[in-house]
């Protein structure tokens, strides 16, 4: 498939708990911001993809109704944490197939509607019935990873500290405060070895992007940002042993995304990755090829992944600090990537960024690494 889609405009709400707002209002804010950023009128949008995981049905239709933007094809997609990125991939494909030229992509979820606590599992799956919760899956990864690499809880805490370095500079982030290693370690225990600040918060939010052809993007006059790669994969089923310190799914998806874009990990100037829990960031450094297997703790400590490092990761604050309204995250990552590629990221700007990678993975299904993983590569 030809990757010939361009991001012409982006916009998002702040991520935070907004139980007093309807999800429709939250989504509309993101849509209007993206349209204004792209400089297009409502009527320029030929199709809409809406990614959401936990909030409701016919989400795209409900958000767009009061904006007078229904009446065109609206496709709702769900792939757990990768819902937003999955929507972007379908949008790029619709453009590649010539089905549409200008497409709106929306990612949205409002977790405060769920009444708090961890995200409920699907009842036919064994794991949630046995007492599994999502933090525990990553906590088990972390315990094994620490045993095999010699990493400590201090390394885990330092991931959260780095996330808050970015988040405190990001007006869209759920948390705007710095934290220390001591504060992270001292926060209340959630799933040993994880304390609360080692886990992403629940919250609400929406993010949107306008995707179009090169010709139309050029006519809009914004810096051209191409979706050079957009890969989606699902986890391989293994009913036996699995090395939980590696992510076969992210490795496999990254390989495809790099091939599509014709680049390698060394070419990435900036990455927004799925740090739902602190260990995730370390594992995915390795799975994305930013450092060798087992090398993530040292890579983190080197400062390479800080905003001014050689391989900045999650300058936005990531899921840990910007927040994680599940379906919105993939598009929020695209917003962040676009702002950096345009030089519009303000205080957290990664200087001279030309290539950005976004990565989501999630969907707890017993026996799979994850239900899905989506990786996008954006090139200015």
């Amino acid at each position, binding site marked *: 498939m030809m990757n010939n889609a361009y991001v012409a405009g982006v916009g998002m709400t702040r991520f935070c708990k907004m139980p007093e707002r309807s999800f429709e209002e939250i989504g509309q804010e993101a849509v209007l911001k993206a349209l204004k950023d792209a400089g297009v009128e409502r009527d320029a949008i030929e199709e809409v993809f809406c990614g959401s995981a936990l909030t409701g049905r016919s989400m795209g239709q409900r958000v767009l109704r009061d904006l007078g933007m229904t009446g065109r094809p609206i496709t709702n997609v769900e792939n757990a944490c990768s819902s937003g990125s999955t929507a972007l991939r379908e949008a790029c494909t619709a453009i590649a197939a010539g089905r549409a030229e200008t497409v709106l992509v929306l990612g949205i979820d409002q977790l405060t509607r769920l009444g708090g606590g961890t995200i409920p599992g699907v009842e036919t799956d064994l794991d949630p019935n046995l*007492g599994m919760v999502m933090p525990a899956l990553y906590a088990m990864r972390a315990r094994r990873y620490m045993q095999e690499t010699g990493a400590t809880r201090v390394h885990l805490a330092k991931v959260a500290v780095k996330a808050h370095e970015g988040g405190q500079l990001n007006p869209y982030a759920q948390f705007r405060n710095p934290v220390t290693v001591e504060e992270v370690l001292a926060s209340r225990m959630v*799933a040993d070895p994880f304390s609360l600040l080692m886990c992403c918060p629940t919250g609400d939010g929406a993010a949107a992007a306008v995707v179009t052809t090169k010709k139309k993007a050029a006519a809009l006059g914004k810096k051209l940002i191409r979706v050079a790669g957009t890969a989606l994969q699902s986890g391989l089923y293994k009913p036996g042993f699995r090395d939980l310190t590696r992510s076969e799914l992210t490795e496999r998806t990254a390989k495809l995304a790099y091939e599509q874009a014709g680049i390698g990990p060394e070419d990435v100037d900036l990455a927004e990755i799925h740090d739902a829990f602190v260990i995730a960031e370390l594992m995915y450094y390795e799975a994305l090829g930013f450092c060798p297997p087992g090398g993530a703790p040292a890579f983190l400590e080197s400062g390479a992944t800080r905003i001014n490092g050689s391989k900045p990761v999650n300058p936005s604050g990531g899921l840990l600090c910007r927040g994680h309204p599940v379906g919105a995250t993939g598009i929020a990552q695209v917003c962040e990537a676009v702002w950096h590629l345009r030089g519009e990221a303000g205080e957290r700007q990664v200087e001279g960024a030309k290539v950005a990678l976004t990565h989501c993975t999630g969907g707890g299904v017993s026996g799979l690494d994850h239900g899905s993983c989506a990786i996008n590569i954006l090139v200015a």
Partner: protein
Amino acid sequence: MTAPQPEGTEATKSPGIEYFPKSKPWRMADGALHLLGMRCPHCGAKAFPARSVCHACGRDDGMETVELVPTGTLYSFAEIHAAPKGFPTPYVIGFVDLDDGVRLLGQVEHRAAELGMDEKVQLVEGVIRTRGDGTKVVSYKFRRRSS
């Protein structure tokens, strides 16, 4: 009893007890819990729970129901302090690789501080949660092997 039980199981004799899974896919023998899994006669693959199609080779004929071995090794674990209603925190959950190669997730009958990685464990029957009406949900769990 909140859920219908197949006739003749212990559940029908013990009010206040419910099994998970409801089909109670295990057999107790000599104090050990033997899970009933699938074995593919074509490629030898094993899995739990039983199913009629082989995930490994794709054949859908002749899958056998076999007893899995009740012993294995604790691959990793986490102690859960924030859980859905009815799971009394803290409790430990872990991945165990049974000695015949099938990996299971399940609760472990110890606190995290008492456990080590790669510890040898065995399958036992135990309460994993309590429903709002007091019903105890019984399933397979893991216990450290004394030997």
